[in-house]
């Protein structure tokens, strides 16, 4: 039942937000998001580390088709529930500095988005999953299309086409799997796990799922919608996309591909892993040359998610555990970095690296917090990024030594582009745009400090998180012979 509350509370709150106006809408949205966070935190504190689903709901829904309205939280979901619960209030708060017009709608869309995301991460029925997966697209699409930059219309259209295409493929796969279930058919994900598909069928289902999720994350070569969309979207939407939404893809790989089509994975997994690793190098090399902060972070995100995908395809406990903890870590870091880009843009009126510089002179608080997030992103030990990257690389390395070494280039290239970005913004002589640069305001601090707190918590004592997921991961990997 608590899961249901996690899904519906933001939806209800979003609807109420729509009825309010201006500042009260904004404050209400923040209050609701905070309550949702507390609820998520409570759920996590009550979670028992077993492979079982907990706090679930399960009622008949479309009886004729045997589709049930069921959901719950297990070890695969739990960190994503935390991620969604943690990031949304911060994303709402991060938007306070901007005066978005029609702000009630703006904040309501964020909360609707949260509801859908919670649904995706907790659905136990494939069609319910699909429904939320699609529903999550709508608010963020409107956020981008209505509040985005000058070039938003073609960019969001491309985004929409790509994701719809992916979704259709997934739907085909789900319907196919549904019809493979015995008897009156069932769309419970757990029943899909029991199927005995022919290797050929597994191959097709594998590709349908892979492309669907690969577009979402994105994995090379399905990524070309992403940098433009991240840049053109208003930053809160970018944060939702990069911080949480792309995890739907990684989550999908783990939830669907690993247990349902192990034979497909056997045949095609290497190819998918190679594509993922190409994405790491490809995205990193491009990131090195970016001038726009937001675009640079977008490409870095693309590179990082490639490693998560490769980790999943390694089919090892390290890879999957690494992907799960890295989803949380990446969400935290990328949201922090996009926020920093936003507040620099806000003050300097530019995100172009060659027009920035010397910011650190007047901003000790920003410098420290930005640096910690940056270090998390380059996976320095004792920060959150290290644990995930270590496990992911270990997984990929075990899967294939050479692929692991290639994926490992991320630790070099990541340092190149991140340190370059940091240097060009914070160090050197101030430019005309950064002459009088104000340090963080209190509300900005409140966005970054919780993120940095998690950077250290996850880095110093990752056991708190790894313990929650381990039994479920072990259980899941049993499906792979």
């Amino acid at each position, binding site marked *: 039942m608590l899961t249901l509350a996690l899904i519906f509370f933001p939806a209800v709150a979003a609807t109420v937000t729509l009825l309010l106006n201006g500042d009260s809408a904004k404050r209400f949205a923040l209050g609701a998001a905070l309550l949702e966070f507390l609820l998520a935190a409570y759920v996590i504190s009550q979670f028992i580390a077993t492979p079982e689903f907990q706090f679930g709901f399960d009622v008949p829904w479309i009886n004729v088709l045997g589709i049930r309205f069921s959901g719950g939280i297990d070890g695969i979901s739990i960190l994503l529930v935390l991620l969604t619960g943690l990031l949304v209030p911060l994303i709402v708060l991060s938007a306070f500095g901007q005066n978005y017009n029609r702000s009630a709608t703006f904040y309501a869309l964020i909360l609707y988005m949260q509801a859908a995301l919670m649904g995706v991460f907790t659905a136990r029925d494939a069609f319910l999953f699909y429904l939320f997966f699609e529903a999550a697209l709508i608010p963020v699409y409107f956020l981008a299309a209505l509040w985005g930059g000058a070039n938003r219309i073609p960019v969001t259209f491309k985004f929409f086409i790509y994701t719809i295409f992916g979704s259709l493929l997934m739907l085909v796969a789900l319907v196919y799997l549904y019809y493979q279930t015995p008897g009156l058919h069932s769309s419970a994900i757990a029943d899909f796990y029991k199927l005995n598909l022919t290797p050929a069928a597994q191959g097709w289902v594998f590709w349908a799922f892979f492309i669907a999720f690969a577009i979402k994350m994105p994995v090379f070569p399905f990524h070309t919608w992403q940098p433009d969309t991240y840049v053109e979207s208003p930053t809160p939407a970018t944060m939702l996309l990069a911080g949480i939404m792309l995890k739907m893809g990684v989550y999908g790989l783990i939830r669907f591909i690993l247990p349902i089509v192990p034979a497909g994975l056997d045949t095609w997994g290497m190819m998918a892993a190679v594509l993922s690793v190409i994405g790491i190098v490809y995205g990193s090399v491009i990131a090195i040359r970016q001038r726009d902060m937001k675009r640079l972070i977008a490409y870095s995100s693309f590179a990082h998610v490639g490693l998560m995908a490769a980790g999943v395809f390694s089919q090892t406990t*390290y890879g999957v555990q690494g992907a799960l903890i890295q989803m949380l870590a990446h969400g935290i870091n990328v949201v922090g970095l996009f926020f920093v880009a936003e507040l620099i843009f806000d003050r300097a009126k530019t995100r172009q690296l060659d027009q920035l510089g010397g910011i650190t002179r007047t901003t000790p608080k920003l410098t420290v917090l930005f640096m910690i997030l940056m270090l998390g992103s380059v996976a320095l030990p004792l920060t959150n990024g290290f644990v995930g990257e270590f496990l992911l690389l270990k997984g990929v390395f075990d899967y294939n030594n050479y692929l692991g070494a290639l994926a490992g280039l991320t*630790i070099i290239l990541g340092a190149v582009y991140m340190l370059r970005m940091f240097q060009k913004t914070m160090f050197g002589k101030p430019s005309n745009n950064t002459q009088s640069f104000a340090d963080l305001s209190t509300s900005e601090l409140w966005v970054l400090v919780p993120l940095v707190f998690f950077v250290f918590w996850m880095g110093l004592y990752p056991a708190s998180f790894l313990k929650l997921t381990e039994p479920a991961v072990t259980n899941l990997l049993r499906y792979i012979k």
Partner: protein
Amino acid sequence: MQAELLCILIPLLPLLGFVANGLGFRRVPASLVGPLAVAGPVLSFLAVLSLFSNFRAGGNQPFKALLFDWISVADLHINFSFQIDQLSLIMLLVVTGVGSLIHLYSIGYMKHDEGYGKFMAFLNLFLFFMLLLVMGSNYVIMFIGWEGVGLCSYLLIGFWNTNTSYNNAARKAFVMNRIGDLGFLLGIFLIFTTFGSVEYSDVFASATGMTIGDKTVLAITLLLFVGAMGKSAQIPLYTWLPDAMAGPTPVSALIHAATMVTAGIYMVVRSNVLYTLSPLTLEIMGGIAMATALLAASIGLLQNDIKKVLAYSTVSQLGYMFLGLSVAAYTGGMFHVLTHAFFKALLFLGAGSVIHAMSDEQDIRNMGGLRKYLPITFWTFLIGTIAISGIPPFAGFFSKDEILAHVWEHNKVLWALGVLGSAMTSFYMFRLLFLTFFGEFRGTAEQKHHLHESPLTMTLPLMVLAVLSVVGGLLNVPHALGGHSALAEFMAPLYAGSQQVNPAAFGGHTMGASEELMLMGISAGVALLSAIVAYVMYVRNAAVPAPDSAERSLPAKVVYNKYYIDEFYEVLIVRPVRALGDGLYSVGEFVVDGVVGAVAWLVRTVSGQLRLVQNGSIGSYVFAMVLSLALIIALRFFINWTSVLGYLNI
């Protein structure tokens, strides 16, 4: 129990200093910054001393202190735990001892800097990570320290961050180190795959069951050595270290001479069982080490920046340390780490004192005659110079000699090259000394006016280090000179495993005392001769190196420009990567986008064709299914909404 507490306190104390000065930056009063920053290292040093005496009293029994289970996934268990044994204790003594002196020195050197508190905080943080590096009981904890010191090195090289070339130097250091770190990391993975653990005790215990020349061990040791190349500045990853001189001078002394850069040597000695198992790795290491030692020494011959000379000297000396390791003279390598920590820290701090007095001038062509104005700096610098040159009876003589003696037994050609390098070392160091402290002052009148000896906080560390540079060699006086190799005896238990797997590599001294004395005589004589040549050139003939713009012969030009290695890397790696980035962004993205679009279009078209051919069986079914199902779901979803809520109320 008490020992465990000490283990925790040792890294924790500097960390507390970091937190206090870091969070309190610009709020902690300037007079309190120094004491806060020095307290941590000094107390840590005392804790190390206490730990050391406990260790001796307890019959040299190594022990581990387990803090907590850090990362546990499947059968991989990484403990956050410390291991105290002979090796970590020696490193702890150096790191906290020399570290304390350099912290003290920094008070005098950095007090008037705007970022004083921040600087001291970073030094403390460095110490914390360095202590993790040497105390960790497994490779992953070592890796935490390994990367952490890299971060601090980055922060401190680019400490004066308004200067773009300093920032670039900092970034270069971090990135080059990361190249090495990737090797290190892959090495760790392979260690775990092979031995099922990353804990030293487990790994080395199972390694003793392996045979010499094992392929996996070869891969492991090479990968780890790649890490060492980065951190300890060996070919091809050494070019960051000379650039790292952009950092304030105490940083160069602490991080880029005495401690961090010797991490690679520590790592190899720590893993000596694995390296002994892989003679091929040792051969490769020896070649790289020798090449690095000679290359860097030759560059040092013509450098005119006081810190650059010392930097190339450090690279070269690190080469000597690896050279020692490559002939399984693990104690010799560590011995040189120790003595080098003393005299190179001394030389850097002395250089700092000179730079301080010369109003930030670093070009030795503009110095000269400073011994009158900076007597303490001069005398201590002289001691450091004698020590590094390998002139008896100062510290460097003993440690370098031990390495060369082992090299002699292994390979006479390498030995000759080693002696050649030693001659160069002596020459460039005395050249530096003479140009700086002898002859007439060549700087501006204003600089001359400001010349002054440094305050006691700076000269005291110089004096202490000078004493250590004189007597440090006594730690391990060879039998040939009537000593009893105390250090070697102390460290012997560390090599039990190595001796077991490859007794031949530890044949012991087969050479007689007279042969050893002869070798000593040759290397000391060569060093002395070089010093005399330098004297004749720079004191007797008062030669001053030509200005940068002067015409140089081709060989001189190549050496003066550091063999154009940086330019070579620029052309070979940096620019291609940039071009690739630009190309992928402008062309690659366009192509990928186009191809994906085209394939999607193709699939749609072809599947349309197929559907016609197959009389619309599968494709249209699926499509119809999709549409109808989507419709049903949509309708049902909205129609049954109230009943769903009804269910929930039950």
